[in-house]
C-alpha cells in the first residue's frame, strides 16, 4: 500500500466517523430540544414513539423521507434544488477542522496520523468562517427561489441578520487569536491546556469573557435560533424561508440548522472553553496509569462542553421571546460591534504589556 492510499483511507474513515457522530448528534438534538422545551414548559414533549418518545427522530426521518416532494409552479427549479444543498454542505464541511480530541499523532501503517481532527490546517478558523457565510446563501436563495413573498421576506431577514452578526462572530474571536497567536484550532486548543484558568474565557492577561458573551449571542443569531429566529418567525411569516419546502429538501434545511448549532458549539468550546482540555491540569486517566487512553477523557470533556452549549440554546429558546427586526439590527451594530472592537483593543494592549 502506498502512503497516499493509506492517508486517503484514514481520512475517509475519519470523515465517515465525524459525519456519523454529527448526524447522530443532530438526531439526538431534534429529540432533546423538544424534550427540554417540554420539561421547561411543564409539558412532556414527544411520548408516543418508543418508550418516552425516544424513537421520535427515526419516525420524523422516515416521515420526511416518504413525504411528497413539491416544487412550486413559479419557483426557479435550479435554485430551489440548489438552496438546501448550499445550506447543508457548509454546515457539515466546517467539522473538517474541529479538533475533537488531543492533537497527538499516532503511528498507523507506518505513517503518522492525527486521529481526532480530520485536517489540521493552519487557517482552520478562517476556513470555518468562510464556509459558514456561504450557508446564508442557501437560506437567501431558498427564500428567493420559492417564488413566495413570505419566503422572500424570511430570506431577506436572514441576509440582514447574517451581515449584522457574522461580523461580530469574526471580531469576537479575534481576541482569542491574538492570545493564541495562531489560526489553527488544534494549536488554539493546545494553548489552553492545564486547568480552567488557562481557558481563554478566563486566561491571564486578557480574559475574553466579553468576547465570549458577544460570540454566544452572535452564534445564536448566526444559527437563526430563538430569540433571533427572524428568518423563520413562524408566527409572522408562516414558516419563513422554507415555507415552500417539503420532504427531504426541508429536512436538509433542518439538518443544516442543527449541524450549524453543533458547529458553533464546537467552536465555542475550542476557542473559549479550552476545547478538549479538562478543567484541571492533565487528565485523571494519565495519573492512574493509563496514559494510552487519556484521549478518551479529553473527548468526553469536549462532548460535555459542546452539549452544555447546545443545552444553552434550548434554554434560551424556552425563555426568550423573539426580537423585533430593528431591535436585532440595532443590537448587533450599536452594542455588540463596539464591545467586540473594544475587546480587541484591550486584548492587544494587555498582550503587548504582559507578554512583551
Amino acid at each position, binding site marked *: 500500500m502506498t502512503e497516499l492510499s493509506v492517508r486517503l483511507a484514514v481520512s475517509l474513515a475519519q470523515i465517515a466517523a465525524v459525519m456519523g457522530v454529527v448526524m447522530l448528534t443532530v438526531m439526538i438534538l431534534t429529540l432533546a430540544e423538544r424534550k*427540554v422545551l*417540554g*420539561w*421547561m*414548559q*411543564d*409539558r*412532556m414533549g414527544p*411520548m408516543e414513539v418508543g418508550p418516552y418518545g425516544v424513537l421520535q427522530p427515526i419516525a420524523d426521518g422516515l416521515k420526511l423521507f416518504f413525504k411528497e416532494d413539491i416544487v412550486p409552479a413559479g419557483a426557479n427549479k435550479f435554485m430551489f434544488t440548489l438552496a438546501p444543498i448550499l445550506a447543508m454542505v457548509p454546515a457539515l464541511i466546517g467539522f473538517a477542522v474541529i479538533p475533537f480530541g488531543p492533537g497527538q499523532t499516532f503511528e498507523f501503517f507506518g505513517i503518522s496520523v492525527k486521529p481526532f481532527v480530520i485536517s489540521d490546517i493552519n487557517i482552520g478558523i478562517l476556513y470555518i468562517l468562510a464556509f459558514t457565510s456561504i450557508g446564508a446563501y442557501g437560506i437567501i436563495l431558498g427564500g428567493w427561489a420559492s417564488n413566495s413573498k413570505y419566503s422572500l421576506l424570511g430570506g431577506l431577514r436572514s441576509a440582514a441578520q447574517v451581515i449584522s452578526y457574522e461580523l461580530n462572530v469574526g471580531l469576537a474571536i479575534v481576541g482569542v487569536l491574538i492570545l493564541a497567536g495562531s489560526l489553527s484550532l488544534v494549536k488554539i486548543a493546545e494553548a489552553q491546556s492545564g486547568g480552567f484558568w488557562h481557558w481563554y474565557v478566563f486566561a491571564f492577561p486578557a480574559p475574553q469573557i466579553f468576547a465570549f458573551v458577544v460570540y454566544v449571542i452572535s452564534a445564536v443569531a448566526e444559527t437563526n435560533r430563538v430569540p433571533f429566529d427572524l428568518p423563520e418567525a413562524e408566527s409572522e411569516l408562516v414558516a419563513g424561508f422554507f415555507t415552500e419546502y417539503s420532504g427531504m429538501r426541508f429536512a436538509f434545511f433542518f439538518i443544516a440548522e442543527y449541524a450549524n448549532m453543533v458547529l458553533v458549539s464546537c467552536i465555542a468550546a475550542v476557542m473559549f472553553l479550552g476545547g478538549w482540555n479538562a478543567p484541571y491540569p492533565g487528565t485523571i486517566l494519565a495519573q492512574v496509569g493509563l496514559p494510552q487512553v487519556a484521549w478518551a477523557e479529553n473527548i468526553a470533556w469536549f462532548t460535555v462542553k459542546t452539549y452544555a452549549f447546545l443545552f444553552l440554546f434550548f*434554554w*434560551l429558546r*424556552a*425563555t*426568550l421571546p423573539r426580537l423585533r427586526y430593528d431591535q436585532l439590527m440595532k443590537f448587533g451594530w450599536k452594542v455588540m460591534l463596539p464591545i467586540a472592537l473594544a475587546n480587541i483593543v484591550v486584548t492587544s494592549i494587555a498582550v503587548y504589556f504582559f507578554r512583551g
Partner: protein
Amino acid sequence: MSTAPTQPGPKRHSRLVEWLKTIVFYEILVGMKATMSHLLRYRPITVQYPHEKRALPDNYRGMLALLRYDDGTEKCVGCDLCEAACPSRVIRVVSAEVPGEPTKRYSKEYYMDMTRCLFCGMCVEACPVDALGMTQEFEWAVYDKRQLYLNKQQLLAIGDRSFPVREKRLELQHRNVAFFNVSFSHVPQKPN
C-alpha cells in the same frame, strides 16, 4: 426633564444599578432561572390524551343528541322551537302529524349540520319537552365534513348511548296537566 419617580410603583433603582442590570442581562437571567426551576421541579400538567382522559364536568357541552322516553318513543314533538333558537341555523326540522292522532305531531325529519354548531346550548334551552340533550362526547373528528350532517336516527343513537336512564312520558310525570287524546284513568271521560 427630571427623572424623579412621580407615581408609586416598583422601587426605582439608581441609574448605576439599572445600567449594571442591563449589561449583565439581568432580566434575561431571571427568566432563565425561572425556566430552569421548572426543569428541575418537573411536574407536567399535560394529560396523555388518547391514553388518559380528563373527567369532564357534568355541565360539559358536547355533542347534541335527541332523547327518548322510557318506553322508547321519541320525545321530540316537532315544534321547531330549536330551529328558531339556534343562532347558527344548524337545525332543520320537518314536522308531521302522528298518523291517526290528529292533534299530535312529531318530527318526521330532523337534521343537524354539526359543522356549524357552536355548542351554545340554546336549542336545548328552547326545547319545551327536553327532547334535546348535550352529551359528554367530543371526539367527533371526521375525514369527511359530510359525516357531520346528522339525521334523526344518528342523533337518537347518540342519545341512546349517552343517556341510558330515560324519563317517563310527560303525561305520566305531570298527572294534572290536560293532554288531548290521552286516556287518563283518573280523569272522567267527556261524555259524547
